């Protein structure tokens, strides 16, 4: 058996095992770790197929960004507070299994028909070599033939980002601002009213005699020579 096939089966085996582990692991963080392993295996399969660019993009985008954000959320979740996936809900489990099976069959059907008919697309090895490599071929395809689709996808993603910001903003300003005001400190005497962020202080006016001198960046220090000079009016509460 040639080496490449052995390595391929090795990688594929690990990928399938880790994918199974993603579903089976009880701790969501373990699932995420196994998903990362699975992604890297898939990237390795891409490399074996000669699609280095896809492999690297797979790692950078899926492993390096999306899964990190997923982990970011999972780390904050107490595993005991999660709904239990492994027990109960037989209908959901059955439907899930069915959907998975259908998906698998679809992929199989596509592969099998392609093998039976023996038809090939335009991305043959010769064509790719003629362009100058996988990366170049991909670039040409995206930026010439599928430019419109590409731009639409990027617009959709931008809208998604904006939507996320809009959804997150009121939370930040409203609820958490409200919460911040509402918490009471153990060390704090009268809680709510003083827990508000400090507003501008009492007006400070320099009385005659003191010399406001520029100090630091954009600040002045009043150099008081006389103890009776009181730049601050008021004081105390109420």
């Amino acid at each position, binding site marked *: 058996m040639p080496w490449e096939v052995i390595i391929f089966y090795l990688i594929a085996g690990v990928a399938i095992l880790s994918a199974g582990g993603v579903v089976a692991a009880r701790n969501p963080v373990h699932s995420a770790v196994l998903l990362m392993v699975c992604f890297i295996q898939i990237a390795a399969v891409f490399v074996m197929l000669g699609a280095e660019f896809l492999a690297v993009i797979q790692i950078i985008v899926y492993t390096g960004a999306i899964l990190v954000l997923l982990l970011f959320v999972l780390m904050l979740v107490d595993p005991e507070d999660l709904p239990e996936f492994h027990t109960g809900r037989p209908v959901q489990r059955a439907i899930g299994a069915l959907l998975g099976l259908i998906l698998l069959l679809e992929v199989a059907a596509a592969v099998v028909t392609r093998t039976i008919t023996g038809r090939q697309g335009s991305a043959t090895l010769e064509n790719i070599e003629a362009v100058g490599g996988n990366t170049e071929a991909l670039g040409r395809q995206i930026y010439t033939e599928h430019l419109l689709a590409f731009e639409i996808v990027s617009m959709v993603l931008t809208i998604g980002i904006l939507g996320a910001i809009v959804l997150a903003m009121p939370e930040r300003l409203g609820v*958490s601002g409200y*919460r*911040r005001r*509402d*918490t*009471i*400190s*153990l*060390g*704090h005497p*009268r*809680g*709510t009213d*003083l*827990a508000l*962020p*400090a*507003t*501008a*202080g*009492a007006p*400070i006016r320099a009385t005659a005699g*003191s*010399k*406001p001198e520029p*100090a*630091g*960046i954009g*600040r*002045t*220090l*009043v*150099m*008081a*020579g*006389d*103890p009776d*000079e*009181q*730049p*601050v009016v*008021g*004081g*105390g*509460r109420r």
Partner: protein
Amino acid sequence: MSSTVAQPGTDGMPVFAEDMPPTGTYTISDEVAINESERLLTLNMGPQHPSTHGVLRVVLKLEGEVILDCDPIIGYLHRGVEKLGESHRYAQVVPWTDRTDYVAAPMNNLGCVMAFEKLCGVESPERAQYWRVIMSELSRIASHLVWLGTHALDIGALSMSLYCFRERELILDVFEAFCGARLTTNMMEIGGFSRPIPDGLIPQIREFLRVFPDRQKEYDDLLTANPIWLARTKDVGVIPAETAIDYSLTGACLRGSGVNYDIRKAMPYLVYDRLEFDVPLGTKGDVYDRYLVRMEEMRQAIRIITQCVDAVERMDTPLMAYESEYVIPPHKGTMTTAEDMQRHFVWVIKGISPPVGEAYAAVEHPKGENGYYVVSDGSSIPYRFRVRSPDFVNLGVLSHLAKGAMLADVVALIGTIDIVLGSVDR
């Protein structure tokens, strides 16, 4: 407001622990229970934490990186200095004060000694007063250097601490030459100084005065205009003037907010009324203002020391008010004449017995007002010895400031209040 449920302890004669009713019960107000139901991250910062300046413990309630609640817990370095002060003779109490704020020990000595002198009605001679001013201003610079180094280190400027400690070393050398100790100086005595001033001391101080302004320019270059420093300190921890007064803040925390209260000017002690200096006042009250105020205070301290050294250089008057009965008799004759030896012996063994009364004396410590309140019942041991340490009171504002700030701001806030846990816990 919830009412207190704490019970007073037992009274009267000694009772043993098992008979005592449980005291120190928590008075957790009902509102606090909110925090339990909220899904907040409780972070226990300290007492072993690199940037709580010792053994301060701060319990934080976080939502992400934003602080919703902050509860400073102190007492990990409590040694009962006040109780110890009530069980030693007057002259023996002074060394205890070294151990409170150990980065500016001469100032603590000075406050304590001034309270005793006020109680006894002793006034130290002029030359001793000048030397006291020199030593206290030197310790002000030393304390501010420690503050600057650790504050900058907390915010991440690694090298500042080493530069600051380099200059502090010069000051400690002066202390060592003056009294033999570097940290716990026990420098001041009731009535002045009983030991003569060493010969080379004035040139040594002059050398420091020559070197220091240039070195301080280096700190300015590193921090004052540094954009990251500005981002971390400007508009962080703003204390309005009213809040500062309300929370009884003193020192740079109060003056950073623009309130003109410096004991050296407001109620001059020693010879401060003869010296020319300015009190820097901030305009905004944030961390950056307090930084500027303290930097300027160091420059003013240099100004004061220069004047004092000029004044004291040709002075040849006594250093100790020996004419008073409350002052330790001169060492001079103790080895040769029996009378002197007896007088000295009796003073040391019996101590002094000030008149019945009470006195409060305060000095402008680098961290704020360091007050000593002494009550005498006519015996040779203080009846009550109260240390009003500035950073204990100043630290009370931390929980107010930390609310709504971010986690990284807490270390900036602790740094800007300038605490030394020996002084907070006493």
